[in-house]
């Protein structure tokens, strides 16, 4: 049974791989041509002619990496404070932040769009990466991780009157590197794949991310004369996440299943 599902799971992917390797004029006569040779890499070569695809790739990379670094910085600072330090309204603030987990993006999107219009931040990298940094998930995850570190480790440093930031940076942060990797990869994938915010915020073609860019080339799909080329674009656009997935599978699984069980 599970094997049958695996076939259903993988057949569409093989289909699109096959299409991407076929000559477009051959496909015009019938896509069942996929099942027999000749195959060609021409569609992938043609990617180099449409320069915007590479611009979108660059945009996605900048946005995803920037957003990831932002989330890591903000959440580990906040996670450290929530887990280790005492300050007025700590518990109340933590509950409010957790409440943020429950707010769907649609509830804020229109107001957010207006705000970014006032600040003239649409079609900018900062504008694309900032909204993702407000996610409460990272703060929640990092708080859990900081809590799990034994107290003895930093209590000694505190007796020596070491400044708090230094304890955070030199003593505790290095211990959270596995957690940072998990959160980082998770955030990277989310940012890379985001569709809703870039669709609204990026209106100039040069500022599209790969996700939006590829979607914008899909109009008139049924009449398209370049099915093979479209397929090649899809394969090309998903290569970075597939590579990330293959290399960091273990961390992704931890991120997905880790916090949820308790």
């Amino acid at each position, binding site marked *: *049974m599970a094997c049958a*599902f*695996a076939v259903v799971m993988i*057949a*569409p*992917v093989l289909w*699109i791989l096959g299409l991407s390797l076929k000559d477009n004029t051959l496909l015009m006569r019938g*896509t*069942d041509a996929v099942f027999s040779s000749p195959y060609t890499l021409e569609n992938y070569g043609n990617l180099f002619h449409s320069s915007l695809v590479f611009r979108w790739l660059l945009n996605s990379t900048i946005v995803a990496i920037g957003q990831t670094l932002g989330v890591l910085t*903000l959440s580990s600072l*906040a996670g450290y*404070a929530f887990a280790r330090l*005492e*300050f007025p309204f*700590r518990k109340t*603030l933590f509950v*409010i932040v957790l409440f*943020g987990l*429950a*707010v*769907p*993006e*649609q*509830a*804020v*999107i*229109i*107001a*957010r*769009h*207006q*705000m970014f219009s*006032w600040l003239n931040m649409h079609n900018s990298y900062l504008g694309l990466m*900032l909204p993702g*940094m*407000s996610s409460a998930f990272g703060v929640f995850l990092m708080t859990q991780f900081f809590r799990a570190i034994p107290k003895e480790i930093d209590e000694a440093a505190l007796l*020596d*009157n070491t400044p708090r930031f230094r304890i*955070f940076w030199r003593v505790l942060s290095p211990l959270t590197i596995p957690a940072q990797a998990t959160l980082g990869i998770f955030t990277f*994938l989310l940012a890379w794949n*985001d*569709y*809703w915010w870039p669709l*609204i915020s990026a209106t100039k073609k040069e500022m599209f991310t*790969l*996700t939006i860019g*590829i979607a914008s080339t*899909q109009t008139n*799909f049924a009449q398209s004369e370049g*099915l093979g080329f479209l397929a090649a674009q*899809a394969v090309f656009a998903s290569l970075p*996440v*597939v590579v*990330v*997935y293959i290399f960091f599978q273990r961390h992704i*699984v931890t991120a*997905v*299943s880790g916090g*949820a*069980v308790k």
Partner: protein
Amino acid sequence: MAESYRRSHWSNALFILPYLTVFVSLLVFPLCWGVWLSLNKVDLFGGARFIGLKNYVRVFNDPVFAQAVWNTIVFVLVSVPTLVALGLFLALALNKTSRASSFMRGLFFSSSILSVTIVTLIWRFVFIPGDGLLAILFDAMGWQQIGFLSAKGWSLFSVGVATVWWCLGLPMMLFLAALQQIPNDLYEAAALDSASRWRTFTRVTFPSIKSTIILVAIIQIVMQFQLFGQAQLMTNGGPAGTSRPIVMYIYETGFVRWDVGKGAAASEVLFLIILVAAMVQYWVTSNKEEA
């Protein structure tokens, strides 16, 4: 003298200040501002006039909105149980330490890492009439082709198939994690009593992972209510709006027709629906536990 470690201190809050700034300005403020917008008649140049609940009246009187709500509810009612059942089934089948099962887990989860654009592109290649994978399959079988993306009863279904394919990995992984938490002696005791497989499942496995099932269902309800990209890219809401979900309605009202107040009102309605659905689900399942 060294300060006591846990002494409450304002300066400690400096660590959360950067995140809190982003959180308040990009989530809390827009949330409140969105509610305010929904109570105003907003024009394109930023002018706003308070009109009370009129936007909500307009939304509720809009048959297009009613249809979108209906589509979304049908979609959630079908896709969420499917995802929970399939995810649980796969987790049970792959809860082994063999190489093959860990490969299969990776395979089933791999689709979740793709963006909605790629997922819909893949499934359009499957569903398109004439040249799609299914069309070829149907021809080979000698069956009449179906307009999966263009026929009234089929378009929402096709969006659902792509969605299940895309989202299945997360429930499966969560169930696997839960299954691995069940202590082995429970199964040993069941084996001693020579309980059947079904009985072992209903008496041991199911009660142990019940809280995970609730969690998965709530996560999926919240996620599937936000259906947008698949419908927009695969069917564009058609034919005749039969696959237009609420979020697409919000998008079209707010960002295509620039009726900002009405769009904001619709998004607040969606927010409320999601909250209520998740709470009802939680309440129903936790009540059963007590009985």
